[in-house]
C-alpha cells in the first residue's frame, strides 16, 4: 500500500506537468507567456503573507522561549495521565497546532529519548502527520486576503487538532 502511494507521488508531478502543458499547447495557448505571468503573481502573494507569517512566528517564539508553553504542557499532563494518555506526547499535542517546525523538533526529541518504534514515537509520528499547523495556516490564509475576523475557523481547527490527538493515541494503542 505504502509502496503504491509513494509510487503515485513520484509520478504525480512529472505527469501533471506533461498533461497540463500538452493540453495547453493543443488548445493553442501561449504556454510560456501564461506560465511566466502566473509565476509573477508569487511575488505579490509572498509580500502579502510575509507580515502575517512574521507576526505569528514571533509570538510563538515568545511563548516558547518564556517557558509558558512548557508550563501549560506540564499542567495538562497531570490531568490527562489518568485517562491513559502518555504524558510524554503532550508537548507534541500543544506544539502541533502552533508551530510545524516546533512540533517537528519535539518529534525528533521524542525519537531520541524513546526511539521511533516505541509507542510514544509512533503516537507522536501519527500526530505530526495527521493535522496541520492550525494557527499558522489561519494567519497566512486569512492574512493573504485581509480578513481579521476568523469567525469559528479557529475553534474548528483546534477541536480538529484535539480529535486527531485523541484518535492518534487510541489507534496506535490498538494497532501497535
Amino acid at each position, binding site marked *: *500500500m505504502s509502496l503504491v*502511494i*509513494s509510487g503515485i*507521488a513520484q509520478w*504525480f*508531478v512529472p505527469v501533471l506537468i506533461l498533461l*497540463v*502543458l500538452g493540453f*495547453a499547447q493543443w*488548445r493553442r495557448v501561449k*504556454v510560456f507567456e*501564461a506560465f*511566466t*505571468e502566473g509565476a*509573477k503573481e*508569487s*511575488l505579490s*502573494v*509572498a509580500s502579502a503573507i510575509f507580515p502575517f*507569517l*512574521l507576526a505569528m*512566528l*514571533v*509570538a*510563538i*517564539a515568545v*511563548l516558547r*522561549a*518564556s*517557558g509558558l508553553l512548557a508550563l501549560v504542557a506540564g499542567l495538562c499532563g497531570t490531568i490527562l495521565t489518568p485517562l491513559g494518555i502518555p504524558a510524554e506526547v503532550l508537548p507534541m499535542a500543544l506544539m502541533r497546532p502552533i508551530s510545524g517546525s516546533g512540533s517537528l523538533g519535539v518529534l*525528533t526529541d521524542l*525519537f531520541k529519548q524513546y526511539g521511533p518504534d516505541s509507542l510514544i514515537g*509512533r503516537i507522536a*509520528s501519527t500526530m*505530526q*502527520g495527521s*493535522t*496541520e499547523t492550525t494557527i499558522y*495556516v*489561519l494567519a*497566512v*490564509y*486569512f492574512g493573504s*486576503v*485581509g*480578513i481579521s*475576523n*476568523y469567525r*469559528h*475557523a*479557529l*475553534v474548528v481547527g483546534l*477541536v*480538529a*487538532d484535539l*480529535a486527531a490527538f485523541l*484518535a*492518534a493515541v487510541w*489507534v496506535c494503542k490498538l*494497532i501497535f
Partner: protein
Amino acid sequence: MVNTLWLAMILGGIAYAVYAGTLAELTPAIFAAAETAVQLIIGMLGVMAFWLGMAKVMERSGLMQLFVRILQPIIRPIFPSIPRGHPALGSILLNLTANLLGLGNAATPLGLAAMKQLQTLNPRPREASDAMCTFLALNTSCITLIPSTVIAVRAASGAARPTDIIGTTIISTLVATSVALLMDRLLRQVRRGR
C-alpha cells in the same frame, strides 16, 4: 479577534518570562523567529512561483474548468455557497489534491489562490465567509495519504519500518477531518442564529 490572540500570546509570554526569569532568552528568540520568517518566505517563493505558473496555464487552456466540471459533484455539497463552475472550486480541488499527496509546497500557493477567489464572493471582506471557514477546516485538519516529512524523519532516526505509521495517520486524519467538517457545520448555524 486575531488582534486579541496575538496580543495575548506576546503579553502572556513576556509576563511569564518576567515571573520565571527567562527574560534573557526572549530577545534572541524574537529575532531568530523574525529571521526564520524571511527564510521561510524565500524558501517558499520558488516552488510557489512554479505552481502559480502551472495554475495559470491550466486556467488559460480551460483544463481547470474541465477539472471543475468533472469533480464538482463531489465537492460542491460541502461548499453550497460557491456557484457552479466557479474558479474557486478548481483551486480548492487542486489544493486538496496536493494535500492528499503530501505535496505541501504545492498546496499553499493553490490554497492562497482559492482564498483570493473566495474573497470575491465574500459580502463582508473583513470577515471570513462560510466557504472560507469550511475550506480552512479541511486544510487545518489536513487530509493526507503520505506524511512524507514524518516518514523522512523516522527514517533518519533509524526506524525499522519508517512507513508503518501511514495507516494510523490516515485513520487519525480522517477522524480530524470529519470532526472539523461537523464542527464547522454546527458552529456556522449557531453563529448565524445569534
